[in-house]
């Protein structure tokens, strides 16, 4: 879909972008001698902002090389892809599985939750700022926009008839939401003391088997030390009281779930940018001792090595190791344990993980769904590809953001790049 926006001449090319600017900037270094002395002094005395405020948060730590300087978060197109243009035919799945369009026209579709009456609620992030519902109208599905102009409303959860919605600032609840899809009831405030930062402030939330609401607060930066409000997964009672720490040393989790047997929390975590094309690997973590484990950030990455800046004097031996490494900058987001009845037995209790695909890497990859198989001893025995085929010519054809197991055992996959949700079914032999 981006092809229409990338005609030659409509966009700059890396190759031709240097001459004038470099000459201008070189002039800053050497050409100023041609300017009046007063201008030099004024230029030199321009107020110096704090070093930490010079660049957008995602760019801090970026090396001063030409390739890195051209790398920024992959832009999101503000129009969802038409249903007949979605990359279904490009998708590759294991034998017996089939992908279809579940719903389209959902700009920036991210998190998914299913209500008791079958409604699929969909969150969004930067581009749309909306909350949607996909309603089954007996054969056709209707997409309703329930709320808009929300602040990075990525985190949603459905529980006992209510939809919980988390922004970087607060968490609210819409009671009996499936009875009020045409006009939402006034939101009830659950918790309003989140820090509210934009960097890694958007949420993934879930209610655990302990009946508590799990809420992460990511690092307010690419790589930094921060105060006690950050880099943790918290849990709280459903009225916002009794906040406690479940996991320390988390950088940016945008997906977690609870093991169907042990009830333990497992979470994906996006590791730091700009260290290397190939390091560090993003993580799948297992919280076996709530509140007692530190998963390394910002000191130790992937359980393997200390950060070149913040890791001096630290040892990776002192931090919890990931259950699985999921690839450098691969951006694992939503994940679910599979407990449905439709897929073959080998998938029972396995973890489906949506990998969004890297922006912070020259060669794009991932943008897929993988399956991690727990080994029954707290770790993971292997990670397998499941849904692939969405990277072509170093561009993304789609970017999975969340997965959700439907009541019938099929798997929904959201794609924020195309504004669509796909449904994966199994029709082969079990």
């Amino acid at each position, binding site marked *: 879909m*981006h092809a*229409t*926006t*990338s*005609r030659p*001449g*409509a*966009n*700059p*090319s*890396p*190759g*031709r*972008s240097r*001459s*004038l*600017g470099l*000459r*201008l*900037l070189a*002039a*800053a270094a050497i*050409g*100023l001698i041609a*300017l*009046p002395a*007063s*201008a*030099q002094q*004024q*230029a030199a005395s*321009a*107020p*110096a*902002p704090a070093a930490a*405020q*010079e*660049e*957008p*948060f*995602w760019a801090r730590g*970026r090396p001063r090389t030409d390739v890195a*300087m*051209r*790398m*920024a*978060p*992959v*832009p*999101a*197109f*503000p*129009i*969802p892809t038409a249903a007949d243009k979605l990359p279904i035919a490009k998708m590759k799945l294991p034998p017996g599985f089939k992908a279809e369009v579940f719903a389209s026209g959902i700009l920036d579709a991210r998190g998914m939750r299913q209500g008791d009456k079958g409604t699929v609620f969909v969150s969004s992030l*930067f581009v749309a*700022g909306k909350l949607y519902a996909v309603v089954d109208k007996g054969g056709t599905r209707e997409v309703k926009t329930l709320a*808009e*102009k929300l602040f990075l409303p990525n985190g949603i959860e459905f529980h006992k008839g209510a939809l919980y919605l988390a922004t970087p600032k607060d968490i609210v609840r819409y009671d009996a939401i499936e009875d009020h899809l045409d006009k939402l009831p006034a939101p009830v405030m659950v918790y309003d003391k989140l820090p509210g930062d*934009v960097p890694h402030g958007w949420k993934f939330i879930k209610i655990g088997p302990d009946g508590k609401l799990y809420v992460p607060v990511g690092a307010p930066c690419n790589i930094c030390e921060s105060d006690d409000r950050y880099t943790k997964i918290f849990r709280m009672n459903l009225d916002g009281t009794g906040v406690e720490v479940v996991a320390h040393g988390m950088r940016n989790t945008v997906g977690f779930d609870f093991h169907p047997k042990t009830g333990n929390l497992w979470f994906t975590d996006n590791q730091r940018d700009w260290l290397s094309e190939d390091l560090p690997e993003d993580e799948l973590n297992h919280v076996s001792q709530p509140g007692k484990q530190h998963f390394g950030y910002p000191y130790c990455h992937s359980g393997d090595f200390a950060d070149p800046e913040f890791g001096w004097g630290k040892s990776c031996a002192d931090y919890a190791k990931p259950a699985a490494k999921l690839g450098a900058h691969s951006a694992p987001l939503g994940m679910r344990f599979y407990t449905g009845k439709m897929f073959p037995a080998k998938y029972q209790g396995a973890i489906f993980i949506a990998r969004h695909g890297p922006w912070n890497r020259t060669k794009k990859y991932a943008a897929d769904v993988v399956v991690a198989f727990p080994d029954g001893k707290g770790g993971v025995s292997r990670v397998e590809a499941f849904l692939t085929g969405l990277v072509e010519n*170093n561009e993304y054809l789609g970017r999975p953001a969340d997965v959700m197991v439907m009541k019938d055992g099929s798997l929904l996959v959201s794609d924020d790049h195309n504004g669509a949700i796909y449904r994966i079914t199994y029709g082969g032999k079990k």
Partner: protein
Amino acid sequence: MAGPCPRRGAVGRAAALVAVASFTALAAWPAGALAQGAGGAYAQRYAEQCASCHGARGTSEMALVPHLGGQPAFYAITQLFLFREGRRNDHPMAPAMSALAKGMNDGDLRGFSDHIATLPPPAGGATGPRDAARFARGLALASKHHCTGCHGADLAGGRQVPRVAGQREDYLLIALKGFRSGVRLGYTNAMGEALAGLGEADLGDLAHFMAHAVPGAAGATAAPAAAPASGGRP
């Protein structure tokens, strides 16, 4: 306003020569030089709905109204989308733009933005003579705040990032103030963070520098045309 446009092919170069052409002149344009099919329809609709403020070829003669020429289609469609959503409230004309954009469907957003991307870059955004001291201060700030990291070494933008070289100085100042105060939000707060710590005079100097930062105006010779866009996401 019209001037040579070294980055374009023959069509763009010729187009720049008629940068202030009226719709009458545009109608006389050889058919083959205009975009075909839907593109042609949006050239017509641009002439009817946009040109009176933004200029027939995307070079605005109206105070505070930005040049559209040379903007990447991705940037243009993103702004049209934000206007349609009512999420641009940083400019005196934003309500009018939002009202206009609310009448556009997704296809219209694509059509208008694709057409805008065919308009030639403006020859400059000066609303007054160049002040060497302000230009130098703006240049130093642009370097210090890494403007080129996203906007490109020649500040010509790309994909979702706007061309700021040669934009109107009065518009740039509104945009910079809006980003710094948080009144104007993109998808992210990247611009707010990039501008943190800058005072009003700094923003004025930055706007002055960018408005004049076009080939020829900085004492630099024209940048050579180069390979067509490929890969290299900004």
